[in-house]
């Protein structure tokens, strides 16, 4: 038996859940290269298991985004209604401000003309 034909089987049995076929097992017992490979697979699996305890930190907005997406429709509607109401009021206020500003401009121009005429 050759090392190449055992190689992928080592990847399979490294977690200890399966055993090698007898001929492969005999080969590994007498082959330092395959034994070394098996050790590397076991180290690899230990390191992979170790990654389970490592968490990546998402940026701050993620939780809020998830919760917003999950918000019940009623809440969303309420929020929409509120923001629509705010938009109407804002629009009215802006229009009133623009009207007042226009009136002031016209009044000041008229006053300027009158003072020139006199």
């Amino acid at each position, binding site marked *: 038996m050759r090392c190449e034909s055992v190689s*992928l089987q080592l990847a399979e049995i490294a*977690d200890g859940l399966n055993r090698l076929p007898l001929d492969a097992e005999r080969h590994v017992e007498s082959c330092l*290269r395959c034994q*070394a490979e098996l050790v590397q697979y076991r180290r*690899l699996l230990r*390191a992979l298991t170790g990654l*389970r305890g490592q968490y*990546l930190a*998402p940026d701050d907005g993620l939780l809020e985004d998830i919760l917003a997406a999950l918000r019940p429709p009623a809440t969303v509607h309420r929020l929409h209604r509120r923001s629509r109401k705010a938009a109407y009021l804002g629009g009215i206020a802006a229009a009133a401000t623009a009207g007042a500003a226009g009136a002031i401009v016209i009044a000041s121009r008229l006053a300027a003309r009158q003072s020139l005429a006199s």
Partner: protein
Amino acid sequence: MLESADVDELVESAKAGDHLAFEQLVRLTYTDTYTLAYRLVGDEEDARDVVQETYLRAHKGLKRFRGDAQFSTWLHRITANCANTYLGRRGRHSHDLLPDDPVIADLNPQRDPEQRVGLGDLRDQLSAALLELPPKLRAVVVLRDIYDLPHETIADQLGITESAAKVRLHRARKRLRERLYPLGEEEEARAV
């Protein structure tokens, strides 16, 4: 650390329609879900999308959660499924993905001066190596060897047969081993 009993209680309340209980479950689990999503899709923005989709599906399907497995395992399964769908969609719309069988770069610090600085221990190298695996291989090794999901569940969530899942797992492990232990290091491993 989170007690299983607390989670079970929150799950029961959420199933009964308590929205705040579900929000609490999200708060307790979203970092874990994000970590898995990132490990599966390999990109922060994509991972965020996968996480959001995961919780929407979990919320919708919570009544079907029977409690046979832990809530976290159930979430992992949904995350895997969402990531798989997402990667499939991304694959159909993208033309610049890595090929399925890319050449593995030699990141042995002994041979690459740039890598001598930065790559610390084996876990750092392993995290980098995982991200270089083709997504199909990466998904299986992440779900099996990090998150301990059974082959059957992995196959189910990825839409492949159990034997295909096993073959991918062995190929992924082989790639990772070759990447982390290039030939020059075999002598060292023999000494262990």
